[in-house]
């Protein structure tokens, strides 16, 4: 079982980390939460199911950890984001804007969006991870995109003027 947990973690740790980076907006916290997922997975029984269902189960754990983190941060606001404003590079400014816009979304909208856009899960897998139907997932992702499009109009316009890398699913 431990070997399975290790293999599962090895296969998904980078995606988990990227998800947490956007979900919580801090690298150190994202790293800690990624390790927490591993701890939780190693203490429990991994469901015997297909890859998609196991991925959904894994990101359900990740989502719960991110939500716990957000609840804890509401009780104890993090002021570190406000420091070193002058030292930020333009790309860091955009990162920060993206993270702020993501933080302004409803929890479920944000998680559905991140699981699709950053992790590459299918609507069905996201539905299982978030307790939603695939149709509801599509609606929430679209709603999140519209809100983000409005909040990030400036960076989006800038992005359209520079050559972009190849896009597509990450799964």
């Amino acid at each position, binding site marked *: 079982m431990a070997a399975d947990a290790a293999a599962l973690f090895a296969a998904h*740790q*980078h995606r988990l*980390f*990227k998800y947490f*980076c*956007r979900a919580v907006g801090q*690298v150190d916290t*994202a*790293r800690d939460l*990624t390790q927490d997922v591993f701890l939780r997975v190693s203490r429990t029984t991994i469901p015997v199911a297909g890859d998609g269902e196991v991925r959904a189960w894994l990101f359900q754990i990740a989502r719960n950890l991110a939500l716990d983190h957000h609840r804890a941060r509401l009780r104890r606001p993090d002021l570190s984001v406000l420091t070193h404003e002058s030292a930020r*590079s333009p*790309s*860091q400014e*955009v*990162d920060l804007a*993206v993270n702020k816009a993501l933080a302004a979304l409803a929890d479920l909208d944000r998680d559905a969006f*991140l699981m*699709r*856009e*950053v992790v590459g899960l*299918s*609507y069905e897998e996201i539905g299982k991870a978030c307790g939603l139907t*695939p149709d509801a997932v*599509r*609606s929430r*992702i*679209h709603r999140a*995109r*519209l809100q*983000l*499009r409005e909040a*990030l109009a400036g*960076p*989006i*316009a800038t*992005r*359209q003027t520079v050559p*972009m*890398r190849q*896009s*597509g*699913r*990450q799964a």
Partner: protein
Amino acid sequence: MSDTHEVISAFLDDERFDSTVLVEALSEPAGRDLLIDLIALRHLTQTDSKDAHVLNDHKPWRSSLRALVAVAAVLVGLVGGYLVGERRRDVTMSAAPPATRVVQSPAAWQDIPVGRTR
């Protein structure tokens, strides 16, 4: 933006969608603008300057230090090997090794002057 543009999201996500609805949505300039914006948004979200941070906390200076240590170790090995070789060569050249066996010449031995063959 109307919810009918959800089909653009589904298309972008490689999920199932109604092609007729998609054609209709993309026939409007607003639909096309949305598609372009959503692609840009995808790149904004997926491109993260924090990606440079590796999960296992590998710091660049650490790998440089490791490379330096490896190069130093190889140099020390080469120079050390050369010096040890030099010392051994000095020892061998200063004193000839003692004979282990005396070869007896045959009885019919005779000297042949230089320049003359038999």
